[in-house]
Structures are given as structure tokens and as C-alpha cells.
């Protein structure tokens, strides 16, 4: 069919773009690196040959590469999570940050680090705690939203929930005796990818894979939900079960990213908004194209964040908010313009 060929082309272009920026951004940073050296190190990774310059090798392989790959995965995850929440709430403004899901996750993560919540889980406790709290946050928003379809109510409810959990996170950081252990309150609220390593990447890659498989398996169900809960139920969908499953997967994936990188807002809002125009609202291509576009966007945004004011690093959340907040306001403007007419 015409449409799927067009969408395949869109995805191929985006994938090529992701590969290009992944490679290109390896060169960009506070230490300038010549192209020949990077290629030598990359070739060495394939052939197993140890490079001459150990510092440069470490910088490329253990600092820049994991950070870029984590950017890629976080961009994809946040975009898909945004789509899932928009489908669930029937609202283009829904997004992990706007709904307070990210703030909930940050409270859980900070609490697990400072107060050893869920300590019986050992290494997994930070992620698990982030997951539990992000799940609570979104469940709270959906309960308070009830059957209302009002965008205003959803956004305000999200704001309230978000404000509560941000305050809780700040309180936890404040109460912690060990500043370094808790990281800063600012880290949780505006996010940062600095210090990412390969173990972070492994976790995020697993979350991204789970989320992609979930979205692929539930494609039909998600498409059906777009027609509204009643119509979906009359067409044979077990709406409540699908809703709970979507919430669980979306908040799981978001909490993995938040536990590692703090809150990176608006990615799940901007990217699906643009991709819906290009690829349509059907989930198959919307999810694929948004995952790629989100990856592309976050790699570029984080590179700008770490280099624009070097040696100072900008929080990534500031970068994404500068791009995302105008889109957010634009959608609100459009929604309310349509409401009046």
C-alpha cells in the first residue's frame, strides 16, 4: 500500500539520520578529537586491536559512546511512552512529564537511594521504587480525571500531581545527609545524562526492547482505543485490562530512564505531535517513526546541552523544555481555539 511505503521511507530516512548523528556527535565535546583517531578507535573495537592512545580510547568508548546510546534509547522510550499516554487519555497533551509520571519516578528513585526503600531488592531497588511511584502518579491522574475528557482538567491534574512529587523529591534530597549520594535536587528536576555508563545502557536497552515489543503486540488494541473507550469495548476490547497494561509498561519504561537521567520533559509531546502529521495516527508507523525521531532529537539536544556553554553543562531538561514548551502552548492554543468554534 502507498501509505506504508511512504512511512517505510520516512523511517529509513530517520534511521539514517540517527546513525549519522551518532557518529557525528562522537567528535563533538570539550576535548576535540580528529576524525582519523575516532575511526581508528572504532576500527579497533571491531578488530580487537588495542589503540595507542588509552585516554582517548576511554573518552570515546566509556564516556561519549554510552552517553550517546543512552540518549538514543531515552529519546525512543520517552516518545513511545508519550504516545501510549496520549492514546490512553485521548489527549495530545498527555506526556510523562506533563502527567507527573516522571516526577513520581524521581521521588521513587531518590527515596530508594536516600532511605533505602525496597532494600530487599538490592541492585534493582532504585528502578523498582521509581516504577512503583510513577505507577502511583499516573493512576492518581487517571482516577482524578475520571470520565472527563477535558484537556484542561487533565493538564491541571497532572500539574498538581507533578508539583506534589517534585516537592517530595526535593524534601528527600534535603533530608539526605550525604549530598553526593542523593545527587542534587536539580538533577532530578531538570535531568542530566552526564556520567552515563554501559550498565545504564544495558538497562535502558532492555526497557526499550520491552516497550517496542509491547507496542507491536498491542498495536490493534491501541488503534482501537483511539476510537474511544465505548466504541472500543463494543468492538470486543477488554478496555480496563488493556488500560492497566499500557499504564504498567509505559510507567516501567519511563521509570528506567528517570532513575538514570532524572526528568527529561516534553520529548514525548513534541515528537509524537510531529510524527502524527507525517506518519498518521495508526500506531504501527507512529511508534516506529517516533522512536527514531525521539532518538535523533535527544542525541542532538544532549550534545548541544553538553557543548553550548562548555565547560559548563546545561541540564538536558532545560534544552527539551525550550523546544517542548512552545509546542505544548501551541497545542493548548489549538485545542481551545477548536473548543470555542
Amino acid at each position, binding site marked *: 500500500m*502507498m*501509505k506504508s511505503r511512504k512511512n517505510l521511507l520516512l523511517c529509513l530516512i530517520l534511521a539514517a539520520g540517527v546513525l549519522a548523528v551518532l557518529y557525528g556527535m562522537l567528535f563533538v565535546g570539550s576535548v576535540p578529537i580528529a576524525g582519523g583517531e575516532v575511526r581508528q578507535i572504532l576500527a579497533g573495537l571491531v578488530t580487537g586491536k588495542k589503540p595507542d592512545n588509552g585516554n582517548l580510547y576511554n573518552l570515546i568508548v566509556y564516556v561519549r559512546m554510552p552517553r550517546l546510546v543512552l540518549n538514543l534509547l531515552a529519546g525512543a522510550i520517552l516518545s513511545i511512552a508519550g504516545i501510549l499516554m496520549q492514546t490512553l487519555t*485521548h489527549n495530545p497533551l498527555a506526556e510523562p512529564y506533563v502527567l507527573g509520571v516522571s516526577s513520581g519516578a524521581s521521588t521513587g528513585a531518590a527515596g530508594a537511594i536516600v532511605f533505602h526503600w525496597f532494600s530487599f531488592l538490592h541492585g534493582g531497588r532504585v528502578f523498582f521504587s521509581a516504577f512503583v511511584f510513577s505507577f502511583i502518579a499516573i493512576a492518581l491522574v487517571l482516577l482524578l480525571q475520571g470520565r472527563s*475528557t477535558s484537556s484542561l482538567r487533565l493538564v491541571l491534574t497532572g500539574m498538581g500531581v507533578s508539583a506534589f512529587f517534585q516537592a517530595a523529591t526535593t524534601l528527600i534530597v534535603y533530608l539526605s545527609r550525604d549530598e553526593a549520594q542523593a545527587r542534587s535536587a536539580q538533577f532530578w528536576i531538570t535531568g542530566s545524562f552526564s556520567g552515563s555508563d554501559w550498565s545504564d545502557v544495558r538497562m535502558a536497552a532492555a526497557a526499550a526492547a520491552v516497550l517496542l515489543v509491547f507496542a507491536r*503486540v498491542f*498495536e*490493534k*488494541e491501541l*488503534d*482501537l482505543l*483511539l*476510537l*474511544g*473507550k*465505548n*466504541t472500543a*469495548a*463494543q*468492538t*470486543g*476490547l*477488554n478496555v480496563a485490562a488493556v488500560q492497566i497494561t499500557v499504564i504498567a509498561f509505559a510507567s516501567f519504561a519511563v521509570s528506567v530512564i528517570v532513575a538514570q537521567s532524572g526528568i527529561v520533559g516534553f520529548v514525548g509531546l513534541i515528537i509524537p505531535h510531529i510524527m*502524527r*502529521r507525517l506518519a*498518521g*495516527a*495508526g500506531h504501527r508507523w507512529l511508534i516506529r517513526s517516533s522512536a527514531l525521531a525521539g532518538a535523533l532529537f535527544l542525541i542532538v539536544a544532549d550534545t548541544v546541552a553538553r557543548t553550548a556553554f562548555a565547560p559548563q553543562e546545561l541540564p538536558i531538561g532545560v534544552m527539551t523544555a525550550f523546544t517542548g514548551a512552545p509546542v505544548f502552548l501551541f497545542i493548548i492554543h489549538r485545542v481551545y481555539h477548536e473548543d470555542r468554534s
Partner: protein
Amino acid sequence: MKIEVKNLSFQAGEKQILRQVSAVFEGNRIYGIIGPNGSGKTTLLRHLYRQIPSRGCVFADGCDISRISPKTYARKVAVMMQHQELTDSDLRVYDVVRTGRYPYKKLFSSYDSRDEEILRRILTENNLWDLRERRIDTLSGGELQRVMISRCFAQEPDVILLDEPTNHLDIRHKLELMQMLRGFGGLVIMTLHDLNLAASDCDHIYVMKDGQIAGSGEPEEIFQRDLLQDIYDASIPVHVWEGRIFIGV
């Protein structure tokens, strides 16, 4: 297919909306449910499409519908709602009609070539094939209606339920809808405000008043001046001209 309602009562808060309603809908016929506002028509229909639990009072071919799984029921019964919740305007015609195939799909399975074949046939029959890539929000009211009824057809149901399908439709689209429903060839149950349409296009009429069935029969039996006066508390002229019934003119 036979849908049977037995002694169905329903209360919302203090208000008794349905009182001991019993009705039978069967065969490949078009049933109209008429009655004044608040008489319980829509509530009765909501029980049939299971938006309100029927608690063992509604049967499909003798089987209690509350015991039938959502997908199985959706393979038998399709619903066209009064207010479609289609707020997501970026969906395309093909995507919307394709969701009608959902009841036939297992978890993990995708829409396949058989689904595509069915969709192609239905879209072609209803003059939508050329519009299949169009976004839903760019369609006219009549086109959107054809999309939604095509979605019902894609479910390949035995029964189609419609709640006030002709509200907001001009005369041309009303006639077009009725023609599509006659072409369906299964059991159709709909609530209607438009008595002339009920008279001309329904095979059987149920009349509701105050949550009860106040009359049942073929249009000729139902559309009598005395009965309508009772139901609507108003004097309503009824004329028969060349074998057709005209009401309120």
C-alpha cells in the same frame, strides 16, 4: 439471530428508567424503537450493547449475553453510536474501518490478507475506496456516517444496533443510511425520533413510554392516531397515501 429481553428493569438513583421490559427481536428484520424523550429507548439499547450490565435479562439465541466474551459478542453484534467519540482526527478512513476486524483477531496476530480482502469489498461497496487514505476530520457528515456503518459491516455481525442514527442528518443521508441498512440483510435494532422514517423503513416497531413497552407491531398497527395521542400526549395527524403512512403532516 434472536435477541430476547425478559423482564428487564433498571433504576438510576431514585428514578426508575425501565420497568419489566420484555421484547423479542428476531429474523433479518429492521426493528424501530420509538417513544418520547426519557421513555427509556436509549437505556434499553445500552443494555443490548452491554454498556449497562444486563444481569441475566437479555439473551442472544437463548444465551445470557452477560456470559459471552467481549470478542465473541462483537462478532455477533455491531454498534453505531449516537455521538462518535472520534476526537483523534489524524486517523484515516482505512484505519477506522479496519478496527471492525478486531473481534476476529487473537492477541499477537495482525490484520492479514483476508481482512484486507473484506475491507476492500466493504469500502468499494460503500463508495469509500477512493477515500481510504483521507483523514477522518476532512470528511463530510455523510462520508463519516458511511465510514462508521462500514466499520460495523467489517465486524460481519448478525445484528447492528443504532442509537438515533438519523439525528443531524439531512434527508439525502437519511435515505442513504436506510438503504445501506436494508442492504445489510441481518437483524437491525435502532432507536428513532423520526416517526416517518420508522413508518417507511421499519418492519416492526416497539413503542416505549415511561420505561415500559406501550405497544408493539407492524407500522400500520402502531401508527394510529389514538395510540400516538396516548404516547406523545399530543394530537398527531396520521395520513395514509398510496399505501404509505405520513405522520405529523
